[in-house]
């Protein structure tokens, strides 16, 4: 795994074959001076997906990632500590009333981005959330409707062969998932039992891990290391789905290549990117630049690319870049059961309920939340306990209950607030780039939602047979920072991810989100990327791309 960190692997006309140990696939490589159609910054859910779509549409594409190009079958050890390399752990400053802990579950560094270590939950947005201001009276409307995105949800689900339930209890009637649901592990069944006893729906979760063979990828063996790299390729991360597609279609993936700046021409158009690879700064020329670095690195890059024409950062005329950053509140509730649970078996989150995403009855807050069963690995578990203030003999005593503990975790919507934002600090990182300062505080509404969610989880867990319940608090996904909208005064990009200010500069990742919803965002990011890919191809056909 160490050579991947020191030396680029994707170069000289070849890239690692993620399906065969030690093997390579041919990859088209572009010269820095060759003007490619698209330079994409980031290869995660947004960038990696878009790279495949654009390359397949016939565009020349170079996609950059600051991190390594992993070989899943060889690099992903069954060792929690070693897997820390999958995260973005560069220095950042986190502040506000409720500072977000940055660098693990909300980041990814490496080809495939955070999909390499995500928990694979593939849920669609509640249709009303796209019009949450006009229909539900809070948050912001998207410049898109659910119906416009629906075919792209289907495309993303098909591309990842999502293994989902035959009948999903919530949302609009949908086409059957490509693959069937997985068996639910014991901690998922605790949630199921609890939900049934209190009279609400539950469901096996649709997951991006295979329940049947797919090409060179085997079905999931329920190893349980899903919050880290999947060493069996059952996990349908971008690294083993869209990235191989992109390479096969002629895109170049440039690993260990940190983009530090978007280069601008005198005409107010982007001309390419400056990136650091093997300690040297180089420039790639491109007709279009797509930023897909997620909710912190995307605003950071736009701000760091300030130039005389754009002194406040690119696409930031209205000062909105970096603002309205959102996370998902993630309180957890844990309890002890008489029977053996072994929640670390199989993917961590196998069952969940979206009851409070779709039912607004009796809520003293705006927004929604889902919660899921969870299954921490040993170190994660020990850290969770230590964070409760346990130490020494008491910690050891509590750790012995590992096999009998079940937990639930919330994915709670937070409101978009202007003061929750990404800015540039004065400190610089190893590349000499100003590091991001992230400010976050929950709103009063967010706090009421968390409290409501906590109570619901207590109720379900107790009804599921758990006793001696206790609480934790965490956050998960990040969203917003370059929100999309219909009005150039009130948003950074349009519905296609194109920045209002610079016609050949695009954004394609979770930072587009105007609101945060109560489900994991990856599927929505990938649906947006599929849509943006199609939209760009259509615009090119009509000659509207290079306006």
């Amino acid at each position, binding site marked *: 795994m160490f050579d991947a960190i020191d030396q680029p692997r994707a170069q000289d006309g070849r890239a690692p074959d993620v399906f065969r140990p030690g093997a390579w696939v041919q990859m088209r490589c572009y010269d820095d001076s060759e003007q490619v159609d698209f330079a994409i910054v980031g290869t995660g859910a947004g960038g990696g997906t878009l790279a495949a779509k654009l390359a397949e549409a016939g565009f020349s594409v170079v996609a950059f990632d600051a991190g390594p190009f992993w070989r899943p079958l060889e690099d992903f050890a069954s060792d929690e500590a070693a897997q820390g390399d999958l995260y973005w752990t560069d220095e950042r400053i986190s502040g506000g009333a409720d500072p977000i802990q940055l660098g693990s579950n909300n980041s990814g560094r490496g080809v495939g981005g955070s999909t390499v270590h995500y928990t694979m939950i593939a849920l669609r947005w509640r249709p009303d959330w796209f019009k949450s201001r006009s229909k539900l009276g809070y948050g912001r409307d998207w410049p898109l409707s659910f119906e416009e995105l629906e075919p792209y949800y289907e495309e993303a689900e098909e591309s990842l*062969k999502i293994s989902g*339930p*035959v*009948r999903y209890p919530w949302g609009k009637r949908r086409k059957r998932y*490509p*693959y*069937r*649901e997985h*068996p*639910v592990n014991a901690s998922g*069944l605790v949630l*199921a*039992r609890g939900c*049934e006893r209190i009279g609400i729906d*539950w469901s*096996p979760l649709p997951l991006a891990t295979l*329940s*049947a*063979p*797919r090409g060179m990828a*085997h*079905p999931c*063996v329920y190893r349980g290391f899903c919050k880290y790299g999947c060493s*069996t390729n*059952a996990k349908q991360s971008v690294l083993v789905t869209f990235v191989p597609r992109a390479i096969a279609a002629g895109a170049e993936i440039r690993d260990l290549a940190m983009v530090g700046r978007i280069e601008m021409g005198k005409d107010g158009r982007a001309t390419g990117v400056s990136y650091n690879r093997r300690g040297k700064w180089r420039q790639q020329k491109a007709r279009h630049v797509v930023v897909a670095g997620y909710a912190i690195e995307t605003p950071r890059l736009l701000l760091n690319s300030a130039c005389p024409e754009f002194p406040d950062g690119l696409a930031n005329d209205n000062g909105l870049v970096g603002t309205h950053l959102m996370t998902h509140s993630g309180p957890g509730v844990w309890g*002890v*059961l*008489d*029977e*053996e649970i072994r929640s670390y078996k199989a993917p961590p989150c196998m069952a969940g309920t979206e009851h409070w995403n779709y039912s607004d009855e009796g809520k003293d807050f705006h927004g929604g939340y889902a919660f899921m069963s969870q299954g921490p690995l040993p170190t994660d578990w020990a850290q969770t306990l230590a964070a409760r203030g346990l130490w020494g003999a008491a910690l050891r005593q509590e750790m012995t*209950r590992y096999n*009998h503990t079940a937990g639930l975790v919330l994915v709670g919507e937070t409101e978009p607030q202007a003061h929750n934002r990404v800015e540039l600090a004065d400190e610089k990182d190893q590349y000499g780039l100003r590091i991001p300062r992230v400010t976050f505080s929950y709103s009063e509404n967010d706090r009421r939602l968390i409290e409501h969610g906590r109570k619901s989880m207590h109720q379900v867990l107790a009804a599921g047979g758990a006793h001696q319940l206790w609480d934790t608090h965490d956050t998960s996904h990040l969203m917003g920072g370059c929100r999309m909208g219909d009005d150039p005064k009130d948003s950074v990009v349009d519905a296609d991810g194109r920045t209002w200010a610079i016609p050949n500069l695009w954004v394609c990742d979770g930072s587009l989100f105007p609101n945060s919803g109560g489900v994991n965002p990856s599927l929505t990011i990938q649906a947006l990327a599929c849509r943006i890919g199609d939209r760009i191809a259509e615009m090119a056909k009509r000659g509207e791309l290079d306006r």
Partner: protein
Amino acid sequence: MPKPVPEPSRRPLIAVGLGGIAAAGLIGAAAWKLWRRAEPADPGKAAERGLRAGAAILSLAVLLDSGIEHYRGEFKNPAMFVAPTLALATLGMTAVEDEAAPYVFSAALAVGAAGVGFHSYNIGKRAGGFDMLNLFYAAPLGAPAALSLAGLFGLAAEHPGIAAPARIAPVAALALLGTAAEAGLLHFRGAFQNPFMFAPVTLPPLAAAVTAASSVSPEAAQVARPLLLGTALLGIAGPIFHSYGIHRNMGGWHNWSQMILQGPPLPAPPAFLGIALAALGLLPALERRG
């Protein structure tokens, strides 16, 4: 504090090992016996031979399938030993002439039915009840019926007077439909990811329809023969396809001890062979009725 849970026992491994060796010996004996017999000219004899062969193959399939699956379930309930034990006894009775045969076959008939009850109870008590999740992954609802069928075929072979071919043919047809339904459910669970997975849900139902018609129409009996031969062939091809399926799981055959359990079930498809052989044996009598 929670009660300590004992270490998993090796008991299942011993049971399956012994069962496997005994099964191999009995298959040899049965095959020898069948091979020794010449093609019978008498339709009654043909029916008896077919039913006996069908009972033998069904009980062998149940022996291996329930042995492996109940081993996976760690024989948590002692009742889980009953199915493989009785399947072994049934297999034995098809190979040797013994006075105990009718009792063993009757017991198989009853235990198979009880098995369906047990498995239904197992599904019903789980969260979600009879939802797809539990139909996919909890105890298989239809599987124990194969043991009943082995017993029934065994009894029918011994009592040609009561179990006339025209009465057994619809039963065989129903059995084919049930087996196709089970294959359909599990292949649906596998998302029909390989086109060959459609084979057991297309040919056997067709063969079933024509076999059922054969009990009233001798012409249908003639059409049934190629369809039943095809179904029998599926029963032989199935384990080969399933071996390939095991290969397509993590580690494949290098990791056989895990993947025989996680991959597609090797002993399941021969149920088609067993039922088809029994039905083929009935055909000469049905053809002659015209």
